[in-house]
């Protein structure tokens, strides 16, 4: 199990650098849309949710999975749409 | 309201109380304006300009005055010249009146039942700024004083580095940084002089510096220096001595000096003595804007330019009249704003509750009304 964890750790550390570097100069006015945009992205645990809901292991896990799918989907769909609405405000009239 | 624009009678007065542009404005507001023939000539406005603006031209002064609700003038009317006598009883007069020093005139006006408004008494409150003729005229004098100095100075104002050597910039020293003083600072700086300014009121430090000049001052508190109206107070003897010493120091280095220090209703303080003039550089120039009220420089002579100890001392009075077009334009706007303020449904409307009306009116219904002038 250890190597998997280590690999994950490498990926984790590198991603943190990437995350820091790309965020480091956002103008404050974009804070809210950026927050909303990354919030939509964090709905990616939907990936885990569909597996849980679809694996058909037992009723409990499937139910939990189903709930997770609903939560994740709302997060993803709603998040992207809201972000998009916010960003429309920044277009030059 | 019937408004009459009088032709000035004072010698060398070139301004006119209303200019055609303002006449047009008043006419548009429903007033009738009559102008004495030739009233605008000194300021390059001819009768044709006035008629085009909607005014009637009236060659006879008596006819003009008799038909008017308000007569507007620049300089106070002369008793001797019959101007006061020509005013219709019950009519109003708007003009500079020098009320503090013109007791006789005020008496004559009140006897004649004239309601007189002194343009110099416009209170210094925010909404009266548009009528503040003292400020307007001080703006003109401050600007013009520096031009006179530059013209008389045997040197350049700005610094120049040329093939024929380096020319040092002129040093200007402005005494009194009120409206005229600040304008003088700005003009001298524009022309490239190095400017220092002196005043007793500490608040003006920031204002002087906002124009890029250096402030020189006594260490007085706000209360010691300034009265409630924003004007300067008279100093104690000790303060005055300190002030004189400080000024003497700076005068030695100055090429041009413009003095504007005044205390309303009092003679101007003497800030430059003969001894101090003697210590100045030959060729330097003093312009004394306070010469009307006694002068800040002991050697200044009202109305003339003298050279003493190698220093040119300009005591020209009524500087505003030397720039008649714009001086008239500004005065005219101030007067018109006051007229519009005073005008009621039908003729003058005297509201004694109103700070502007009561602050500016000096005589009314046969009496001297202004508290500062009574007694």
């Amino acid at each position, binding site marked *: *199990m250890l190597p998997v964890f280590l690999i*994950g750790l490498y*990926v*984790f550390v590198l*991603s*943190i650098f*990437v995350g*820091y570097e*790309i*965020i480091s*100069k*956002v*103008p*404050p*006015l*974009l804070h*809210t849309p*950026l*927050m*909303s*945009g990354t*919030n*939509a*992205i*964090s*709905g990616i*645990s939907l*990936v*885990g*949710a569909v597996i*849980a809901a679809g694996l*058909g292991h037992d009723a409990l896990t499937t139910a*939990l999975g*189903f*709930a997770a*799918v*609903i*939560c994740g*989907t*709302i*997060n993803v*769909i*709603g*998040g992207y*749409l809201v972000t998009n*609405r916010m*960003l429309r*405000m920044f277009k030059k009239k | 309201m019937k408004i009459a624009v009088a032709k000035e009678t004072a010698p060398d007065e070139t301004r006119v109380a209303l200019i055609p542009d303002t006449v047009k404005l008043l006419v548009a507001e429903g007033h009738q304006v009559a102008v004495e023939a030739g009233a605008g000539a000194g300021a390059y406005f001819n009768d044709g300009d006035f008629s085009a603006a909607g005014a009637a031209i009236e060659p006879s002064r008596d006819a003009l005055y008799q038909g008017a609700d308000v007569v507007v003038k620049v300089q106070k009317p002369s008793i001797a010249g019959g101007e006061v006598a020509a005013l219709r009883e019950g009519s109003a007069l708007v003009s500079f009146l020098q009320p503090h020093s013109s007791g006789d005139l005020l008496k004559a006006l009140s006897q004649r039942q004239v309601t007189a408004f002194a343009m110099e008494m416009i209170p210094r409150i*925010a*909404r009266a*700024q548009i009528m503040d003729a003292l400020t*307007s005229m001080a*703006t003109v004098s401050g600007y013009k004083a520096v031009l006179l100095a530059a013209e008389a100075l045997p040197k350049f104002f700005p610094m120049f580095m040329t093939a024929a050597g380096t020319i040092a910039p002129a040093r200007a020293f402005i005494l009194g940084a009120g*409206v005229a003083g*600040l*304008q003088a600072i*700005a003009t001298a700086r524009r022309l490239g002089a190095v400017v220092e300014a002196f005043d007793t009121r500490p608040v003006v430090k*920031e204002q002087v*510096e906002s*124009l890029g000049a250096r402030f020189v001052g006594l260490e007085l508190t706000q209360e010691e220096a300034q009265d409630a109206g924003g004007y300067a107070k008279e100093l104690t003897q000790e303060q005055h001595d300190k002030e004189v010493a400080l000024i003497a120091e700076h005068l030695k280095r100055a090429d041009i000096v413009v003095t504007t220090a005044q205390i309303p209703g009092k003679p101007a303080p003497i800030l430059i003595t003969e001894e101090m003039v003697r210590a100045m550089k030959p060729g330097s120039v003093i312009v004394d804007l306070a010469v009307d009220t006694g002068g800040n420089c002991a050697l200044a002579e009202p109305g003339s330019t003298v050279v003493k100890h190698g220093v040119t001392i300009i005591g020209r009075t009524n500087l505003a009249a030397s720039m008649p077009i714009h001086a008239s334009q500004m005065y005219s706007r101030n007067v018109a704003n006051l007229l519009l303020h005073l005008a009621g449904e039908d003729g003058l409307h005297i509201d004694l509750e109103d700070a502007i009306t009561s602050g500016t009116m000096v005589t009314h219904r046969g009496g001297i009304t202004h508290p500062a002038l009574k007694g």
Partner: protein
Amino acid sequence: MLTYVSDIIYLVSAVFFIVGIKMLSSPATARRGNYLSALAMVMTVGTTLVVGQIADYTWIIAGVAVGTVVGALAAQWVKMTAMPQLVALFNGLGGAASGLVAVSEYFRRLDTLESYLVIVILLSLTVGAITLSGSLIAYGKLQELIPGRPITYPLQNWGNLLLMLAALGVGIFLVIEPSRIDWFLVLVGISLLIGVLMVLPIGGADMPVVVALLNSFSGIAVAFTGFVLSAKVLIIVGSLVGASGIFLTVAMCVAMNRSVWNVIFGAFGQLDVAAAGPGVAPAAQGAVKAYTIDDALVMLENSDLVIIVPGFGMAAAQAQHAVRELSDKLGERGIEVKFAVHPVAGRMPGHMNVLLAEANVPYDQLYDMDAINDQFKTAGVAMVIGANDVVNPAANEDPSSPIYGMPILRAEEARTVMVLKRSMNPGFAGIDNQLFLRDNTMMLFGDAKSTLSKLVAALKN
């Protein structure tokens, strides 16, 4: 071969997410960035649906359908001003999803749980649960279901510490005894409680920061879910969101001139001067909004006409050259600039003229009050530089004010009023100015010259 292809797709998606977030951080590319990240999301989820050995799509389809409808409707119907609370809600659901996946994995693998797996499951669960409950409280505060003021109680920080230690203890116990479902549920409870207690004491005005922090938490939960499922793309995206969320939180605190610590644990009530972006719920009426250079920049860049109102503060700061430079820079970008010179701005007649002429502002850019007053309503920004009395609406509205009756520049009619001054101090007349408190007013505190220089520098990039 299939995992090979799918892994490559996941990698490409990760790259798209990275680029998408990067694009989100500049106004010019933000919308395209959002589309790109949405595309990456579709690719990732789609690939999982294909390669994820799904036995039964029923519940997935049902769940996605419900989620889509609810999410889309909520996003479309919400009012612009209610967006922050919606984002908080969405974020909580994201945390919930991660937590639920962790719970589901826990039960599914109950028999084969190794320590490593338990650890990551518990982490994913705990962080997810905190995100959920914290976000719900934040939602409640923003929606004003819960009082916005900080709710404090004695020893709260000690209480929280205790709870966290408890969670840690239960966690360690579960690593040793993975199959103790009862304790597992206790941990869920503790986690939810921590979320609630963490957010309750924080004032409503600080909620945007809290939401940013919780957003970072939801990212971290995703990363742990990635460890649980050995899904690298989740680790990448989760840590990306986690990291960017943290730095965003810090950036927001910096913009407010406060430390993160102070915001989260300070609990000293709503500040007067609070940072707020657009869409963030307006601070209580009457509170001043202080903004940053970058906020100002976006406003300026989105204007066709900027009217500059100089006052005595410009003179005092000797900022005339900087003003001219700003006007030049705006001009270069095709934004029209006009100067509105009030007749008594400054301290002597023509004070502004003298200084603007010194800075070589062309005369034809100067407008006097009568000429400009009707144009404010068409201006994107009215930039008030060290002026105060000359734009004070009290002159029109308040007969008791000493400046009542003085005609003023109607700066307040512009879409945004930007005020450059050092403090809330009054001007010459010594009276307060309600303009500074209006909704469309942006205060940029600081010496006018230095603020302008910063604006110019920012405009050059």
